[in-house]
């Protein structure tokens, strides 16, 4: 063994991260370090701060509904509101809380009950009420753990999504997936640890930003890798036209040999790390197309997700890829469905959005279940906040809009150590305030980390003299959500 490699093994975990964090010349990425250690060392805790506990889940599939879906029209069943159509939202409920600049000037806040029918589906408690917009999801109600009492601090999309992804409303912190990549390392040598897919929505789309899957102050190897539906699935994956795979191998052999000499000449361990990374890139050129080629999926599987599953870029196809990524050990798989920002014409737009995600999500859960993957895969479905019970703009029996509502909304989790077929938390009769068991975004993060075997207070990274966490100085594990 080369003396440097020997020394690499002697690095303590603490020192290693100090090196990586300080951006020191010979900074070693975790993957780089893993390469130095050889494949067998990958699972070794040397490379990562975690896990701290025995993990229940090995990975996360995070379905982010960008734009914030209406909890009132999907999952937070309020039959009593029918009687209150067009009544003014009582001040006792509204409590003078801040509103966005879009409705703060509204003369009235007329109650807009959901126009959609709800159905009761059996679960492990007293049943789950799910709107007619999500019939397929109703079929898997026994897997879902609803949290009806989510709340957030942000009132607008940018800070709201930033908060959900990074635990802070302002740009600058690492995203959840980056924390996980840092905390647990990779479980697949040929694919990125953190993969993001985006589906263009059918309604009012808000902006996404690279920061939502950025690594903030963590080394950039932890940033999310966007899997694209057009062009190269991973940026720059494909060789230029006229370059065949054998050519790349030939070139890599040349570079590898020359670099090996350079390593001997300089005694710089980074050189060998770079050789290893190039080899991994070469393997990725195979493994990613293999991942995205769904032609081998049988009809039974496609039927689970619906006909769009073979159409690249659709949410159904992303869900199918999410399963394929999960199978391959990718740690954090994040799907963004854009277009839930329904300030006006909500009934029409939410129908389209819900139809695009309902069957694919249910299909994903069933597919994971039948392949034995659901128990080790933590699935989260959420928007960045909820929507108001009062109508923004015109209210008629069949048309209304809803503004942003951070005070309460519904998310659900499934799989990976989550208590299935349950609901947690309650909102008032207007789905406006939480009356029972509020769950903060930091609590959700802490709980999810717990299931992944990470103690949210111990998953820290020192930056500018302070130990940062995903949960900042907040967060508590919500034991009621755990199986």
């Amino acid at each position: 063994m080369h003396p440097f490699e020997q020394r690499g093994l002697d690095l303590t975990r603490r020192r290693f991260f100090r090196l990586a964090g300080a951006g020191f010349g010979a900074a070693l990425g975790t993957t780089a370090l893993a390469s130095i250690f050889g494949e067998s060392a990958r699972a070794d805790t040397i490379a990562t701060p975690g896990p701290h506990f025995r993990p229940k889940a090995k990975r996360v599939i995070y379905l982010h509904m960008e734009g914030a879906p209406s909890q009132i029209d999907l999952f937070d069943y309020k039959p009593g509101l029918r009687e209150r159509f067009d009544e003014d939202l009582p001040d006792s409920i509204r409590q003078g809380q801040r509103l966005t600049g879009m409705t703060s000037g509204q003369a009235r806040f007329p109650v807009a009950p959901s126009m959609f029918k709800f159905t009761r589906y059996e679960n492990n408690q007293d049943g789950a009420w799910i709107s007619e917009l999500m019939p397929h999801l109703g079929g898997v109600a026994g897997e879902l753990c609803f949290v009806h009492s989510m709340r957030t601090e942000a009132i607008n999309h940018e800070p709201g999504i930033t908060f959900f992804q990074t635990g802070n409303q302002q740009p600058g912190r690492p995203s959840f997936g980056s924390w996980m990549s840092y905390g647990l390392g990779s479980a697949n040598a040929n694919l990125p640890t953190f993969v993001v897919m985006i589906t263009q929505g059918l309604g009012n789309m808000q902006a996404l930003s690279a920061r939502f899957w950025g690594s903030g102050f963590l080394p950039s190897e932890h940033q999310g890798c966007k899997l694209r539906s057009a062009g190269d699935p991973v940026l720059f994956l494909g060789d230029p036209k006229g370059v065949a795979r054998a050519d790349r191998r030939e070139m890599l052999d040349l570079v590898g040999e020359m670099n090996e000499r350079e390593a001997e000449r300089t005694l710089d361990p980074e050189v060998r790390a770079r050789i290893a990374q190039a080899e991994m890139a070469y393997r990725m050129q195979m493994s990613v197309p293999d991942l995205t080629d769904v032609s081998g999926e049988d009809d039974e599987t496609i039927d689970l997700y619906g006909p769009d599953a073979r159409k690249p870029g659709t949410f159904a196809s992303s869900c199918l890829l999410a399963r394929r990524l999960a199978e391959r050990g990718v740690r954090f798989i994040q799907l963004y469905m854009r277009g839930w920002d329904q300030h006006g014409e909500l009934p029409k737009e939410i129908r389209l959005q819900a139809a695009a995600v309902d069957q694919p999500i249910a299909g994903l859960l069933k597919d994971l279940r039948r392949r034995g993957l659901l128990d080790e895969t933590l699935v989260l479905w959420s928007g960045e906040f909820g929507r108001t019970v009062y109508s923004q703009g015109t209210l008629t029996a069949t048309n209304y809009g809803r503004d942003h509502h951070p005070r309460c909304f519904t998310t659900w989790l499934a799989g990976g150590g989550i208590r299935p077929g349950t609901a947690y938390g309650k909102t008032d009769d207007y789905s406006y305030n939480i009356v029972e068991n509020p769950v903060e975004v930091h609590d959700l993060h802490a709980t999810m980390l717990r299931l992944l075997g990470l103690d949210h207070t111990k998953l820290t990274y020192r930056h500018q003299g302070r130990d940062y966490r995903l949960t900042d100085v907040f967060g508590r594990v919500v034991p009621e959500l755990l199986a």
Partner: protein
Amino acid sequence: MALRPSLLAAAALSFAGALATSPGTPEPLRYDRDVRAILSDRCFRCHGPDAGKRQAELRLDVAESATALRDGKWAIVPGDPEQSELLRRVSSTDEDVRMPPPKSGRRPLSDEERDIVRRWIAEGARYEPHWSFVAPVRPPVPAVKEAAWAQNPVDRFIRAKLEAEGVAPSPEAEPETLIRRLFLDLTGLPPTPEESDAFLADLRAPDAIGDDVWSRWVEKLLGDEPYRSRYAERMATPWLDAARYADTCGIHMDAGRQMWLWRDWVLAAYRDGMPFDQFLTEQLAGDLLPNATDAQRIASGFNRNHVTTDEGGAIAEEYLVEYAVDRAATTASVFLGLTMGCARCHDHKFDPIAQEEFYRFYSFFDSIEEPGLYAQSTDANRALEPFLDVPRPEQKTELDALHAKRDAEQHALDVPEPGEDAARESYFATVLADGGVEWPETKLVSAVSTGGATLTTQGDGSVLVSGPNPDQDEHVIALHTDAKGLRLLLLEALQDPSFYDGRVGRSDNGNAVLSSITAEAVSTVDPARTTPVHLVWAWADHEQPDGDFRAVNALDARDDLGWAVDAHRVPGGRVALFVADEPFGFEGGTELRVTLRYQSPYARHVLGRVRLSAGRIGAAGLERLPVATSAWYLVGPFPAESGHAAFETAFGPELPAADGVATRIDLSKNFGAGNQYWHFDETLADDKANGALPAGVNATYVGRRVFAPTARRAEAEVGTDDGFRLFVGGAEVAGKEVDRSLTTATDPVAFDLSTGENALVLKDANSGGQAGFIWAWKHRADELSGDLVGAILPVSARPPDLAARIVRGWRTAYSPAYRLRAERIAKLDADIAAVEALVPRTMVMKELAVPRETFVLQRGRYDHPDKARPVTRGVPAALGSLPDTFPKDRLGLAQWMTSPENPLVARVAVNRLWEQVFGTGVVRTSEDFGMQGEWPSHPELLDWLAVEFRESGWSVKRMLRLLVTSRTYRQSSRARPDVRERDPDDRWLSWFPRRRLAAEQIRDQALYTSGLLVESLGGASVKPYQPDGLWNEVAMVQSNTRAYVRGSGGDLWRRSLYTYWKRACPPPTLLTLDAPTREFCTIHRAQTNTPLQALALWNDEQLVEASRVLAERTLLRTGGDGEKLAVLFRRCTGRTPDASEIARLAETLAHFRRRYASARGDAYDLVRTGTAPLADGLDVAEVAAWTLVAGAILNLDESLSRS
């Protein structure tokens, strides 16, 4: 090696603190270096500076508290560890006693750490102030044994440490390695083989002295063009990271904004060797300098580089706080090396910065003339207010000339023609008489507010509003008149001293929005007889321009639209005129009840003093009134398969509104997925080329509401790019399918309007490229267009500015000489505007006239100011104070920062230079010099450099010269396994730290070695190659940075620091290679090593193109393969390859030659990557084979690194 005892002794004396002395007598511990880090990490959270979290009243960061008696115990008894409670607690195994407590999550002290604390207490527990908070004093330069080795004082400090550790420095690196190192470090680009040869030749010259040759090359790179400009470009890049410079806003729309003039200021500052104190002062406070120059004001944009929001629902106050926090935190990080942002929510946990002190510092930055929430704009080149126009010299000359011409025309225009006044008076008299305009007396009867405001009738017939000012209100005003046949209703909004600044509105800024006006006539004789008065036409003397706030919006009952009077911007009275569709007034007298509704989203925007009157107008008079219109709205684009399909397909907006009322434009209707609503567009106007409709094959609709005082035939002229169809009231009245560009209004159209509201929709069908339209009404000869409507108002009702405008209106209509001049002026104005649109502009700092009051924000929340804790501007007490003689503003702050008493600024700045050259700072945590920061590897060196920097006039070039001429810098970069055991991170610098190039340098090197690089200092940002669709995937549909339009020609090959930086989607290859997103201040970049980097380096189009052009360049040389390979290799790595390396390269070359000779199609595909033209006369298979070899060489670790 023979030691010289005298020198060794001297070194020991001057280095008592830092040198390890002989074994057996351990050097005394220092609190600052050895102890504080332990206490800070484990104890200060609860026993430190943060008063809010402090437990048991105990502070371990100050001696007085730590050594005080409490509950019969002392935390620390100096000299007596056994009596010290601190030691007992950190040593205890009892979980209830042990510190830090298990639930704190902090680790217990290790044995080693405990031993340090014990020893320190035993040695007397001497506290020291934190080293970086004490102003540096120049320490003596240490003597070293090998004095001849030391080239300058830097070497003596480094060598002294090495000698103390018993380590010899590394030998000097090879000359070829050295010159590449120097070129990359100072200019960011490698030397060409010719430059390397010149350097080698200089060294080999008969009487050459190596050190002198080296110094000459250093001078050349710092001082001579083109190196000097390259040096500026190299130095600017880390500064742009620190200053979070980018080309977009970062949030929501992530809209484009112009800041590159600031970036160019940075470039010029580095190129011209601006002293650092000036560099600091102008960036912090350039706008506050006496007689600030444009350049100084541009520099102040440093603190405008932060992200900003234009998200519709955002709360302005919240973002004003975020902007000021960012400025304070960035300023503290960049110049003071302090993480001051930590004290936003509570006292700093580790550093002596109280929360209140944070807000004192913050208040330097929170009084800027800026909105918290920026308006969305389609102009990707705009600069966010406050900004500065900076015309280029030729633009300035042109503008001066245009203004001079305009002034002369204006002067001539202001002089009336002979006889003009009389002609005008006679015209007005005729208008009134022929038009049947009369204003019979009306009497104010009563006035009530339904919202609870107090309405008082005034002697002048007006109604004054006072008392409560509800968010929304409704005023019902009753008039009595004996007249009949009334058609006109006049509303005068009067000024009153009881309103803000004596304006007409009661809102906080004096503005008002009338959401609707309705009226009813009641017979005095028989109050049961009432008739509604339908108002169908409106005109006002002022209408707020930044939304659809026109007076016609008050005609209907809708509350979301209204007439906004623009009084927050323009003072003075207001007047509005309304026309009813039928005459009103009963025999025997009429009570006219007028309801003014203020129900718009703009709370409390009430007209505070209104006078109403009613008048008559005859049929002829009505005919002379022009049509009134709403603003233009836009919906679209609706993409189509072809221009014809765009023309043919009805996408919806042309159809009558759903409620069947054909006269409406339905603003609440969504015409398709993707949020297709009619929306106001303030750029659209009549009589001008609206040339920025969405590009592409599509249809876009513009529409407006048109109000006719009488049913009539209207005429207009239309021009479109390309075809158009015109719909009035849901029926098509004109159209033309044509392919053309927008020039003038060419197509006459005529159509019938009903009395009152009509919907007018113009569909613009575009077959590609930009779309646009022009709309020009054709006015009838006797029409009272524009301000001339004012001529029918009673003279007493005309505000002064309106009176003047009426005169102008008349002169425009009836004096040909005047009209000619006015047209010339309009043309000049257009010329001026056209030049101004191209004038570069940039965002700057600008203080509010009256600074905001600053309070401590509880938990840092914008909406929780602690009114009991107002703060004044100041700096944290631990760092000193602002002398009374300094102004209490950013300028004073800059003066304080650059004063000799400042402990941090010079240290932080030289440390960053050190980091740039040696990879790691003397203080490794270059962004944190606080208590959690790391102890310097060479404390005396840092202080020496800091003092040298300041005393030598803050010269950056001088400091760099010092570093790169040192022997330390010239060492070999071969790592040393023997030393590495003891100094794993090479902090002693016993070898030169090898380092991968920064992202920008990697791309620049590829462009430069291939000869593609287009060098030109500064200018607007450019858009080189980027994979398709990246911006689209993340941007909002409405964002003006949604489509990435690749530049052409030279824009593709500029240095990377000129690449357009969209924060939500930064340039992908640069980001992959560890460039930050520029959303916040980044002092140093982490360096990582990932497979995605390899993929980008292999396959990014611009790098493949560079390989190809590099291959061609190589092939065009004379010589054999070996020679060519050697030059190619040397161009990229700086090193001449040996024979075995050339053989290995040749082997691969031969392989690819065979491959492409038999697959010429593949060769063609490969060489056609990129847009750079193919070199003439080369065989494609040969180029393809060499392209892959060149690409491999560019990908060598040796090329990607600086050895």
